[in-house]
C-alpha cells in the first residue's frame, strides 16, 4: 500500500524549527546522514510533512524527491501527524485471528478516519502495528502507553470515552 499523505495543515512551532535546524547543522556536511536527520526530524515533529522534508532537502543539499523516496521506503517514517492520543491496533497473527481487524474497523468508523490518519482536531490518530509481544492478551491495542487486551468491538466506545471522545 502506498503511504498516505496527510492533508491536515502543518502546525510547526519556532522551537521545533530551531531544533531541526540544529540537527541539520550538525549533519549537513555529509549527505549520507540523511536518514538519521529524517529520524530526528520525526522525533521533533511526530511525522514528516512536506514543510519538514523541504527544510531537510535544502539543508542537506539533496533533492526533495530523494527525501520523499526514503520516507516512503521505510515503514518507520510517517507522512501523517500523530494525534494527542495515538491508537495503535495490533494486526499481528495472534491478534488478527482473535478479531483485531474488527477493532480496527470499529475505530475507523467511530473516529471517521482511516488507518495512518489523524483526526482534524489533532486528538486521535490511528495506526496498525505488528506484534507487540502481548499475544496472551490478544486482541490488543495501545493508546499512547496504555495497553488494552482481550477486547471486543463493544469495548471500543468506552476506551475512546476515557480519552475524551
Amino acid at each position: 500500500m502506498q503511504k498516505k499523505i496527510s492533508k491536515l495543515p502543518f502546525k510547526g512551532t519556532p522551537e521545533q524549527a530551531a531544533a531541526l535546524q540544529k540537527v541539520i547543522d550538525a549533519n549537513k556536511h555529509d549527505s549520507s546522514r540523511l536518514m538519521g536527520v529524517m529520524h530526528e526530524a520525526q522525533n521533533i515533529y511526530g511525522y514528516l510533512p512536506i514543510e519538514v522534508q523541504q527544510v531537510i532537502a535544502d539543508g542537506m543539499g539533496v533533492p526533495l524527491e530523494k527525501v520523499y523516496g526514503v520516507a516512503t521506503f521505510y515503514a518507520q517514517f510517517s507522512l501523517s501527524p500523530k494525534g494527542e492520543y495515538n491508537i495503535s491496533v495490533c494486526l499481528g497473527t495472534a491478534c488478527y485471528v482473535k478479531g483485531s481487524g474488527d477493532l480496527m474497523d470499529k475505530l475507523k468508523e467511530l473516529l471517521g478516519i482511516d488507518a495512518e490518519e489523524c483526526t482534524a482536531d489533532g486528538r486521535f490518530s490511528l495506526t496498525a502495528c505488528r506484534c507487540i509481544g502481548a499475544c496472551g492478551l490478544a486482541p490488543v491495542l495501545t493508546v499512547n502507553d496504555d495497553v488494552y487486551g482481550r477486547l471486543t468491538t463493544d469495548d471500543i466506545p468506552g476506551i475512546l470515552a476515557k480519552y475524551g471522545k
Partner: protein
Amino acid sequence: MDMVNVKVNGIAVSVPKGSTILEAARAAGVEIPTLCFLKDINEIGACRICVVEATGARGLVTACVYPVAEGMEIQTNTARVQKARKTTLELILSTHEKKCLSCVRSGDCELQKMCKDYGVEDAGMFDGFRPTYELDTSVPHLVRDNNKCILCRRCVAACRQQFVSVIGANDRGIDTHIACAFEKPLSEVPCVSCGQCVVACPTGALTDNDSTADVWAALADPTKHVIVTTAPSIRATLGECFGMPVGTNVEGKMVAALRRLGFEKVFDTNFGADLTILEEAHEFVERVQNKGVLPMITSCSPGWVKFAEYYYPDQLDHLSTCKSPQQMTGAVLKTYYAKKMGIDPKDIVNVSVMPCTAKKFEINRDDQNAAGVPDVDIVITTRELGRMIDRAGILFTSLPDEEFDAPLGDDTGAAVIFGTTGGVMEAALRTANDWLTGKDNKDVEFHEVRGMDGLKEATYNIAGMEIRVAVASGIASANYIMDTIKSGNAPWHFVEIMCCPGGCINGGGQPIQPAAVRNFTDLKALRAKALYDQDAAMTLRKSHDSPVVKKLYEEFFDDGIGGHKAHHCLHTTYVARKKFQ
C-alpha cells in the same frame, strides 16, 4: 594501456583493463541484451537481463557492470542464461500493461524486442496483483504512464544527470513507482521540461504529449494557412526515424516530406537563428558599452531558461532578453510575413518541428504573441514528425531533395550550427569578429567552443578587446556556471547555455535510439558532425550576411537592430518560479 585477455563464447579478445563483460563481448562481436543500463548515466546492474556465465564468478553475473579479469571465459548464451533472462522478462511482463497494439513505442520498444527475441509468451506466466496508475498528463511536454513502467530507473538517472532530480522511486515492493515528491504532478515540481527522461525510457512509459492530431486537424481545415518551420538540428536526426545512419543530413528530403504532408509553406527556423544572433550581439555590445549586467547568457534553450527561473530566480538579468529562434521565427511569420502575404495572422497556423520537448512549454509562455496571437501554434518533436510521415505513407528514403520556401529560405552556416553545443557561441563570435574589426574576416571557425564537453571556455582577442566566453551544455554544467556567477567570480563576458547535454542534437524530442545503440555510439558527435559539415560547405556562414535578415530590417524593423520595433517583436521577459506548488 594494460590489456586483459578473455574469451567470449570461445572467441578470444584483448580489451583494456577495467572493461566490463558487456564491452568485451561487443569487441568479440557479441551483443548482450540490456534494459536498465545506459552508459555513463545508469550503471546499476539492477534488471539482470544482461546476466552471463563467467569463470571465477559465483552464479550468473551482470555483464553491464562486471569487470573482466585475465583469462576469464564468458558464455553469453547458454541454456541457463537464456532461462534466467526469460524468467526475468516474464516477471517484468506480469506488471506491464500490454497495450502493445496501440502503444506509440510499438516497434522500437526495447522490452517488446527482448520478449520477441526470447519467445516470451504474452499470456501471463505470473499474473496476479497488478498495481494501476493514473496517467500524468499535467505538463505540455510529456505523458507519464506508469502502467508501462518497468522500474529500470533510466529516467531517474537521466533526471539526476540533468541536476534536477524531480523524479525518483517512491514507496516499496509491489508499490514501487516512479513519481515526484508527495505524488505531485510534474506541473507542480521544478521539472525543466528537457525530455531527457523520454529519450532514456525503453518502453512506452514516457512519451511525447502528442500534438500530431492538432496538426492533422489544421491541415484538413481549408480556412487555415498552415505553415511549418524546422529547427536546425532536425535535418541531422530525422533520418534516424526511417532507419538511416546516425548523422545523415536529410534537409532536402525533410522539406519534400513536409510539402507532401500538405503544409503551404516550409520554412527554416535557421532564419530565426540568424535573427537571434543579430539581436543578441547587439544586446551584448550594448551591455558592454553601458556597463550592463555581465556575463550575458543566451536564452535560446527553453529548458535552460526554465531552470534559471526555478533555481536562480535572482540572477535572471544575466539572460539575454532575446526570444528563442523558434519564437523569433514565429513572431516574424505572424507579423511581417502575414502582412506581406495579406493574410490575417489569426488564420495562420504555425507549426514548428523541434528537437525539444521544452519548446511545447515555451509557446505558452507570457509575452510570446507579437501579433496578438501566439507566435507558434503547435510544436511537434522530430519523433512526432517521423510518425506523421509514416502515417501519410510517404517513402522518406526515396524522396527527392527540395528547397525551403522563400522568403525565409536563405540561411547561413552560422544558423545551421545552432543545433549543437557551441554553435550559438560560434555564430555570435563570427558576427562580433566582423563588427568589432570592421572587416569581412575569412577565418570563421572557432574550434575552441566545439566538441561534446559539458563545459568549454575560451578567450578571444578581437580588435584589441579581450572577450572571455564559456559554453555549457547539460544542466549540471549550467548549474556550475550559475554558482560561479552567484559567487561573484565569473570571469566570462558571454556564456552559451543549452539545457541538453550536447545541445539540441541530443534534445529530448529527438529520435529514440535503443540502449544497444546508445551505449556504443557517440550520437551527439555524429549528429553534430552533420551540421558542421553543412556549415563548412556553405557560402554564407555569418548571420549578418543573411540577405533575408537584411531585407527584414530594411522593410519591417526599419529602426534597426535592437530598435523599438524589433524589441517589441523579438524580445521577452522572465519570471521567478516557485519550485513546489
